């Protein structure tokens, strides 16, 4: 149920769109397995939010391509566009309901961020960073600290997250910014660099060394409120010029023997690394929405161009390889979207597993989007290269902007390494299927209301392994049973069985794989990539199986499985890709083909 329609977008809404709307009583009945837990059946009105952002082709709209191009060209922070998001209540989605915001469901936060990213990635990254800045406090902060931060964010205060330093990127334990205890609090010395919102942010959550020898218990988090610091003891480092997200405030923050009050500590002293690693499970999941937004836009531009462009007496879209390429790109977007939505829902239904799921999502979704954007760029030809023509150069901008998504907040390599760290567990748990299957089914059934997120259940290791890949055998069996009963095609069931066999084989290889700690060999990264593929295919299959009410549309699932299998099959086994032609033709004819995850965002 949605709130009453609001007046046209250009009229300032009296109430922020992002207010929590309780839905009807029917939606609040929890499935039996979760009946003991609080169920959040609240929702924000995404369609209204999108409408309020305005028509992106209208230069005067709150978030338009023209405005975006202008701030990008000037390398200026898109302050006005961020204010529009503030006005619409977007910051409320960065704050969990229990701390005074509207964040009840992570899938909604992702969907809203995707809608913004689709228009302007710089705005989405610059504005959305506040969620990343707050995440550690939602996980480990004191209740009054979290409430105060929530109030600041809702009022529009940007928050930064300072992990990285000039000399050290991904290696969090190498950080040298240090805090020493003194009466009433800490003294902090050091610099954080390449920090989004470091200058604009009123607050910054810093990872600091609190034991000289460092180590996993040698770091702590301080939520520093610049407005309470002596002005002569901290510095902003100059804006760093970047290839993409040129308008963003990428700068740094230095502290010179700066006093920080004791109540700035987030969680316990020595708990910094643990909290950051858990927060990254949330933020890596959320970052996948940035990739989906960029991919949506890239594909739209490519499809529209292909439909319009005349060549050799035909339109581009009638060339067989163009059809095939676009159909494949849709299949790729669908699987990426499913992984992202599944990961967001799993934060609610299987928080014990998100150390695996978030790593898969952050490795899989941005790299798929990178590929898709490259493909679209090829189809756009010179139009993907010009900065002023073709919707104000929207493509070349998103192309540059998206590059950073696979680099920050844990690069693709770092995410794969996080997965490699859990290989021993994954291998051990797979044959016995030790994870709780209910968490997977509940995440995949998009109509099931989500239980409130219980962040204290996040864990650094998925002790029961990964329920989704463990359950692939039974999912394939369920599809076969449907095929036998005449409700699905035998061909589709065969694809699912092939994927399941790959997944079992992969786990046998994982079990044989020699342990690899600090310096994982290249082979481990190849195994991680195969795990991601099995995971993505399993997610697509599960989403199909658990949403049959919305129709037995086999086409999207077939396309997703073929898309996955072509990367898993040995080179000597070529893949027949004609399903991508059928998918593209169906979409072109206006048929509503696609996974149910797409609802509300297309």
């Amino acid at each position, binding site marked *: 149920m949605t709130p009453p329609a609001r007046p046209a977008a250009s009229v300032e809404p009296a109430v922020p769109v992002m207010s929590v709307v309780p839905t009807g009583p029917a939606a609040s009945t929890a499935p039996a397995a979760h009946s003991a837990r609080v169920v959040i059946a609240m929702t924000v009105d995404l369609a209204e939010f999108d409408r309020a952002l305005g028509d992106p082709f209208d230069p005067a709209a709150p978030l338009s391509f023209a405005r975006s191009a202008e701030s990008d060209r000037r390398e200026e922070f898109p302050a006005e566009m961020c204010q529009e998001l503030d006005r619409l209540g977007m910051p409320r989605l960065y704050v969990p309901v229990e701390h005074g915001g509207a964040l009840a469901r992570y899938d909604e936060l992702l969907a809203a961020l995707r809608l913004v990213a689709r228009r302007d990635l710089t705005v989405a990254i610059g504005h959305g960073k506040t969620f990343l800045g707050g995440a550690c406090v939602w996980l480990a902060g004191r209740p009054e600290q979290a409430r105060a931060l929530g109030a600041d964010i809702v009022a529009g205060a940007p928050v930064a997250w300072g992990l990285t330093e000039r000399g050290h990127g991904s290696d969090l*334990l190498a950080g040298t910014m240090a805090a020493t205890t003194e009466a009433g609090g800490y003294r902090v010395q050091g610099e954080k660099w390449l920090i989004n919102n470091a200058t604009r942010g009123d607050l910054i959550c810093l990872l600091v060394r609190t034991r000289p020898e460092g*180590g*996993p*218990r040698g770091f702590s988090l301080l939520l520093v409120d610049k407005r309470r610091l002596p002005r002569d003891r901290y510095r902003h480092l100059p804006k760093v010029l970047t290839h993409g997200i040129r308008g963003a405030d990428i700068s740094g923050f230095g502290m010179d023997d700066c006093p920080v009050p004791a109540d700035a500590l987030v969680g316990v002293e020595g708990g910094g*690394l*643990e909290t950051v*690693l858990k927060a990254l499970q949330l933020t890596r999941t959320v970052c996948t929405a940035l990739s989906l937004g960029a991919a949506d836009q890239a594909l739209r531009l490519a499809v529209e161009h292909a439909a319009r462009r005349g060549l050799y007496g035909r339109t581009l879209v009638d060339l067989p390889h163009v059809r095939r390429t676009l159909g494949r790109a849709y299949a790729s977007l669908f699987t990426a979207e499913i992984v992202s939505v599944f990961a967001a829902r799993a934060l609610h239904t299987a928080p014990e597993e998100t150390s695996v799921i978030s790593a898969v999502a952050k490795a899989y979704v941005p790299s798929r989007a990178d590929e898709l954007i490259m493909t679209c760029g090829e189809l756009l030809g010179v139009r993907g290269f010009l900065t002023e023509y073709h919707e104000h150069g929207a493509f070349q901008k998103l192309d540059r902007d998206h590059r950073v998504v696979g680099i920050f907040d844990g690069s693709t390599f770092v995410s794969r390494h*996080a997965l490699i*760290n*859990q290989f*021993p*567990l994954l291998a*051990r748990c797979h044959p016995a299927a030790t994870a709780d299957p209910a968490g997977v089914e509940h995440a995949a059934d998009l109509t099931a209301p989500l239980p409130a997120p219980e962040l204290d259940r996040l*864990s*650094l*290791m998925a*002790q029961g392994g990964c329920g989704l890949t463990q359950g692939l055998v039974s999912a394939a069996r369920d599809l076969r049973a449907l095929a036998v009963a005449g409700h699905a095609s035998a061909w589709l069931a065969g694809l699912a069985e092939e994927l399941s066999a790959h997944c079992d084989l992969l786990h046998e290889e994982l079990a044989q794989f*020699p*342990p690899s*700690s*600090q310096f994982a060999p290249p082979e481990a990264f190849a195994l991680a990539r195969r795990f991601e593929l099995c995971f993505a295919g399993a997610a697509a299959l599960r989403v199909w199986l658990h949403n049959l009410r919305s129709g037995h549309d086999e086409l999207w699932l077939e396309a997703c499985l073929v898309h996955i299998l072509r990367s898993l099959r040995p080179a000597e086994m070529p893949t027949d890709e004609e399903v991508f032609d059928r998918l593209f033709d169906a979409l072109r004819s206006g048929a509503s083909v696609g996974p149910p995850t797409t609802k509300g965002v297309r």
Partner: protein
Amino acid sequence: MHGSELAPMEPSLRSWLRERVAHYARREPADIDPSVSLTNYGLDSVYALSLCGDLEDHLGVVLEPTVVWDHPTIEALIAHVEEMLGGSSRRMDAG
């Protein structure tokens, strides 16, 4: 009585842990000194968390994954596990 139950476990737990650490570090168990921090054997702090799952399976207990961060040597881990098991059976006695 609990002491006598735990006593024989301790040496076998030590050799079992040395074997596990040696496996992850890809060395010989004899090379693993139980009083030396696991990071010295190249066990990255996150990778070392794998040990927790093994230990849970081996002992049939539930542990915090970060147990190896708070007790970073084999000796410290054994002391912690003994205290935990001893502590819980004492509580059971009291109840």
